[in-house]
């Protein structure tokens, strides 16, 4: 575990840079992490981040498909918002754990 400061707040991250505690997150922190990933956050981005956080709070599994069915973005737009690895990047910015794929 490592400690890192974003937007003046110290947060605990795991070795891969994902939040240990989703309650340490706020929008300013998200914007700074996004910048490190080369992404400028828009309202659309935040809607996706809130959707992901709500899912995790309910204990549901995150998949790219479920984001595509969220009504916020389709899968193609999700890729455009978070280029490279949409679920990996969006969860990092959303302050939640990296989704694990079941074996």
């Amino acid at each position, binding site marked *: 575990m490592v400690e890192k400061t974003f937007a003046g707040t110290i947060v605990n991250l795991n070795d891969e840079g994902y939040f240990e505690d989703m309650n340490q997150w706020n929008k300013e922190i998200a914007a700074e992490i996004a910048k490190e990933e080369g992404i400028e956050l828009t309202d659309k981005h935040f809607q996706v981040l809130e959707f992901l956080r709500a899912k995790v709070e309910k204990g*549901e*599994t995150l*998949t*790219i*498909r*479920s984001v595509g*069915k969220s009504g916020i973005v389709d*899968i*193609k737009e*999700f*890729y455009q918002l978070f*280029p490279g*690895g949409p679920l990996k990047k969006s969860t990092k910015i959303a302050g939640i754990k990296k989704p*694990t*794929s*079941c*074996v």
Partner: protein
Amino acid sequence: MKRLLILGAGTAGTMMANKMRKALDREDWNITIVDQHKTHYYQPGFLFIPFGIYQKQDVIKSKSDFIPPGVDLIYSAIDKVVSDDNKVFLEGGKVLNYDVLIIATGTHTAPEETPGLKDKLWYKEIFDFYTIDGAVALQKYFKSFEGGNLVMAITELPYKCPVAPIEFVCLADAYFTQKGIRDKVKISFVTPLPGAFTKPIATKMLSELLKEKNIEVIPEFYIESIDNENKKLKSYDGQEIDFDVLTIVPVNMGSDMVERSGMGDDLNFIPTNKQTLQSEKAENIFVIGDASNIPTSKAGSVAHFSGEILYDNILSYIEGRPLLAKFDGHANCYIETGFGKGALIDFNYETEPLPGTFPLPGIGPFGLLKNTKINHYGKVIFRWIYWHILLKGKEMPIEAEMTMAGKKRVKI
């Protein structure tokens, strides 16, 4: 008279019918099992059909052969579960009341979910091997295949038997080598995952194996559609892969019955307590096998291990005791790697596949995460075990709970 109703007479449902009939008094409990199909498929055998190792008749038997006396078997499609009324509606309007319900309706492939998949190349140059028809069609195709670009692709997670696509490319490598045309066949493995497998230590072992066999792994490729005209896979982020022949794992979904009952997630898998196997919808509904959303493999071994837990918990529920048996997510998979060898993995929710020996610590005879001849024989013998021991709900000499004995913690 009370009724235990089981929906689905596949691996999990059949096993539970056998186990529960032995435990529940026939004077007090009726057990009824419903399935729309009459044939029981030995699904692990589908993998071998494309390569002519098994034929269709090697993997089919009658479902009724495995349902014990004292269990009512109804052949019917299921319309829906109405959990508030403890009723199940069958197609055609027949209604079954239940006191306890086990849902074991499994998962099926849904090629229609991917644009261009079930199109003009379907079963001509695009095949699945998760259905008997797909596996048989592919066997026929391979007999006259003279070479080209063979792509094995996974569309979506989760899918049934996560190691099967890896086994498929290994067996294809062996098959074309033995046919003397391996140098004319390019084999690629396309996956939405970051590597050949989900967990790091197994991924390392399997990646090395695929590399040795000259099989290219193309990771993080999430299929949007298939272009039948130009024979290309297209991803959401604009990448393309050419193929001459495509074998694919279509999107896996739970039964439509689950959707009609309003019980499923976005892929129709049923939210289930991962330890007790009780559904989140109602206390008297339990879910076993591929139908549930528990975070472990969709595989027969999981159905088998979790069956022992479910047996305990249903008896506890009936007798008004707390559900103390807890499933740990235990899965155990033989991985056929071609040329008469195989590997083996054993893991659960918490512990990823590790190297070692199985089931006896230090002795084996099977080697975990090792490519050996004896592991291959384990897989060969398993078909007999499946029909004669597992489906009939008899004891196996392997514990339901995973053990660390015989496993080595390693660092990558």
